[in-house]
């Protein structure tokens, strides 16, 4: 009798996994860069093309890299959050303008509440984005004083994510 229950047993195990699967998001890709040094780059700044920006500029500081673009619909959602954060001060928000037209990007910032970035790097062909493992926009990285990536937030930065995960993490990294 026992062995005839085997098919049922196997089936129930399968069901458990399927049930767990309903809560997971198969499209969310965790980043392999967490715990690794921030990729090196040297890009022109968005608003000041003559000047350059690189991660070395932020050695010794805790900073946030936000990947954005004027063609990105979800970025409009998170932009007010970032502008507010910039107004409050105390957080280094660096932008990575990804595969965009310089003029479009600058106009977009003006149209949507200002420039929270100090400053934005201009990644025209997206190569730096690839080094960061960017596959969708927006994405946000938190980097510590030693230049190690500590966290990646996929999708728009919500006030909730900010309060619960990002700001506490940045405070903790400040203290280190």
């Amino acid at each position, binding site marked *: 009798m026992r062995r005839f229950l085997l098919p049922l047993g196997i089936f129930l195990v399968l069901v458990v996994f399927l049930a767990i699967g309903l809560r997971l998001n198969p*499209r969310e*890709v*965790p*980043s*392999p*860069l967490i715990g690794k040094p921030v990729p090196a780059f040297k890009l022109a700044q968005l608003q000041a093309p003559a000047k350059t920006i690189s991660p070395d500029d932020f050695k010794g500081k805790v900073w946030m890299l936000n990947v954005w673009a004027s063609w990105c619909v979800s970025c409009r959602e998170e932009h007010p959050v970032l502008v507010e954060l910039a107004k409050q001060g105390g957080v280094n928000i660096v932008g990575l303008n990804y*595969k965009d037209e310089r003029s479009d990007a600058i106009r977009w910032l003006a149209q949507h509440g200002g420039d929270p970035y100090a400053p934005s790097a201009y990644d025209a*062909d*997206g*190569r730096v984005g*690839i*080094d*960061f*493992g960017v*596959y*969708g926009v927006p994405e946000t990285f938190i980097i510590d004083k030693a230049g190690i990536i500590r966290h990646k937030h996929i999708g728009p930065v919500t006030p909730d994510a900010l309060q619960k995960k990002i700001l506490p993490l940045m405070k903790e990294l400040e203290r280190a």
Partner: protein
Amino acid sequence: MRKLIAALIAGLLLSLAAHAGEAQPVGDPAIEARVNKLAEDLRCLTCMGQSIADSHSDFSTDMRREIRDMLTQGKSDQDVMDFMVQRYGDFVLYKPPVKSSTWLLWGGPFVLLIVGLAVLVAKLRKRDKQIPAAELTSQEHDAAAKLLAGNDQPNETKP
């Protein structure tokens, strides 16, 4: 008249030569072939389950460009795959890596086959012992012979 025809032919040939070119391949064919092969094994992360070879998305186009550049610089196929995995993790590979976390995946079917065949053979042996060999009595033999001999009716084949 002949001169006119000759001139026309010359003109035609010249214009043909000017337009009819052998179509230029997109980049070096050998490199392109390698790009396509690698692209088939890499996942498009913005698509719903397509390789970057099959997908038209921006992400895929960028990835193919990266691969092309790397191969043109002389990097190997493995270098390209390592590059992608460093940035995007194992998820970007369509051929799952052989690691401790994927032993079950790679080994499973083979193990299942061995087990399946073993179980089959074991069951058949057991079954053989459980079912008594049916012996026909001599009466049954005779009845069968009669049926077989007297059966010359057109008949559907019995199952």
